[in-house]
């Protein structure tokens, strides 16, 4: 790759989100801002090899993209008055470009992506595409959606943002916590990206974990006073710290309780602990801080070799008050079984409505495990069958088949 191409790619990766957020916020049109920025990046690839890489690649890209937007608007036969406006916008470069110091609108863009008017299923993909510039095929694969369906969804939500006039702004303090929750949920969905069992996911299938952590860091930097943002980042880092331990040397699946703690990443765990402690000082608990606290309790095993299941069960009770998800209910049952007895865990599983778990793998895996422990062999076998049949991961499937037999 030529230097110019490499520089164009580097500029694109480093500043795609900032450039796009700025353009989309100014023009209130995500799709057109994307097209213009895409054209500008292509133009850079054509021009820079001839002219050399400009001193401020970002500023160059911004000018080129803005020119495309103005030209596009002219073609759309705008009125003379509007055209004067457009020329004015073009001239703004004098104001911004000396330092490429255009304002960072990425936070506003994140709030647009997770706006209540946007279909929940489209929020994370929209974030990944606009803030990180991820390509559609990769997003579709991560979320197990047909690529054509994913691109239609993204086109639809961008039209909605434009037509509904969704504003690029930071919500007022009264709404901030609730709106931020939606942003954090969408980032967390990228971390899980389709895997039911985040903590046990195959380390080779990284999904979008790195991208999610990057977004998590971005939000904590842009909103340093938000404890839940720190909680989410702490949660993701704790899970990430265990990634190398989730498989043994032979590639076999290793459940959390059997993981070799010497393979957990101490620096990631330490960073997560610092974030969680800083979040706690705000004295405003929430779902992600609780989830991070649960992972922090598991992390203690690396320090003293013990897991305090009673504490973990209590934390899950707290979590269920904020987010009574099926995942949290199943994990609570697992903690109860460890802290007290297998039948206490089983009773907690029985309390979950059957139709909610018809296709939820972790429920059946835990059910098989608990029934086996209670010596109810035939029932255990049937539950394991469902867990195996619902597994996407061949290593997990193999692990459960062994458990079922042995």
């Amino acid at each position, binding site marked *: 790759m030529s230097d110019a191409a490499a520089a164009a790619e580097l500029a694109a990766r480093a500043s795609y989100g900032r450039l796009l957020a700025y353009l989309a916020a100014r023009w209130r049109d995500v799709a057109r801002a994307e097209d213009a920025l895409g054209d500008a990046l292509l133009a850079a690839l054509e021009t820079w090899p001839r002219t050399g890489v400009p001193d401020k690649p970002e500023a160059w890209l911004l000018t080129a993209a803005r020119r495309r937007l103005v030209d596009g608007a002219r073609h759309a036969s705008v009125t003379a008055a509007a055209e004067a406006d457009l020329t004015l916008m073009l001239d703004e470069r004098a104001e911004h470009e000396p330092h490429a110091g255009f304002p960072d609108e990425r936070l506003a863009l994140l709030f647009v992506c997770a706006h209540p008017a946007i279909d929940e299923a489209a929020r994370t993909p929209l974030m990944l595409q606009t803030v990180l510039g991820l390509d559609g095929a990769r997003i579709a694969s991560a979320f*197990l*959606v*047909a690529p054509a*369906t994913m691109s239609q969804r993204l086109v639809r939500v961008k039209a909605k943002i434009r037509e509904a006039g969704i504003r690029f702004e930071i919500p007022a303090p009264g709404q901030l916590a609730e709106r931020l929750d939606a942003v954090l949920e969408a980032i967390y969905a990228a971390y899980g990206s389709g895997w039911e069992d985040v903590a046990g996911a195959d380390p080779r299938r990284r999904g979008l974990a790195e991208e999610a952590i990057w977004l998590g860091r971005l939000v904590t930097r842009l909103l340093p006073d938000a404890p839940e943002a720190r909680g989410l980042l702490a949660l993701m880092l704790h899970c990430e710290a265990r990634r190398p331990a989730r498989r043994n040397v032979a590639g076999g699946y290793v459940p959390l309780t059997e993981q070799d703690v010497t393979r957990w990443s101490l620096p990631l765990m330490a960073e997560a602990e610092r974030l969680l402690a800083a979040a706690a000082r705000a004295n405003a608990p929430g779902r992600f801080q609780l989830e991070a606290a649960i992972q922090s309790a598991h992390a203690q095993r690396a320090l003293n070799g013990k897991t305090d299941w009673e504490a973990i069960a209590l934390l899950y009770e707290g979590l269920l008050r904020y987010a009574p998800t099926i995942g949290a209910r199943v994990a609570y049952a697992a903690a109860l079984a460890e802290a007290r007895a297998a039948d206490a865990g089983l009773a907690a599983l029985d309390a979950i409505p059957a139709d909610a778990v*018809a*296709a939820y793998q972790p429920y059946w895996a835990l059910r098989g495990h608990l029934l086996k422990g209670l010596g109810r062999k035939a029932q255990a076998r*049937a539950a*394991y*069958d*469902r*867990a*195996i*049949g*619902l*597994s*996407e*991961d*061949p290593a997990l*499937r*193999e692990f459960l*088949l062994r458990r*079922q*037999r042995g």
Partner: protein
Amino acid sequence: MQYTILVYETASELTARTDPKRKDAYWGAYRAYTTALREAGVMVGGAALEPPRTATTVRQHDGKRRVQDGPFAETKEQLGGYVVIDVPSLDKALEWAARCPSASTGAAEVRPNMSPSPPPA
């Protein structure tokens, strides 16, 4: 809406069906998969197919009949079976396809079943 999941398997997977060391894991995984489909209430039907070497292909083009030993096309992955499911959307059908054991070795192709055409007016 009905979808068919076409189970494409590699030669190695097809051998696993009868390999004494691997057949328990192979059949265990498929039995569990169909159990999960049935228990979730989405299974309409399906079958495992005997391996491609048992196939016989018939063509009658331009009045000429040709009967040939072997499958329609020799490819790296061969059709090993199919499952018909009834789910609300393609997204759901893809979730089930991802759980098919062949998805992590060969492939699982999802096609919508055509709805029966309306009777002629």
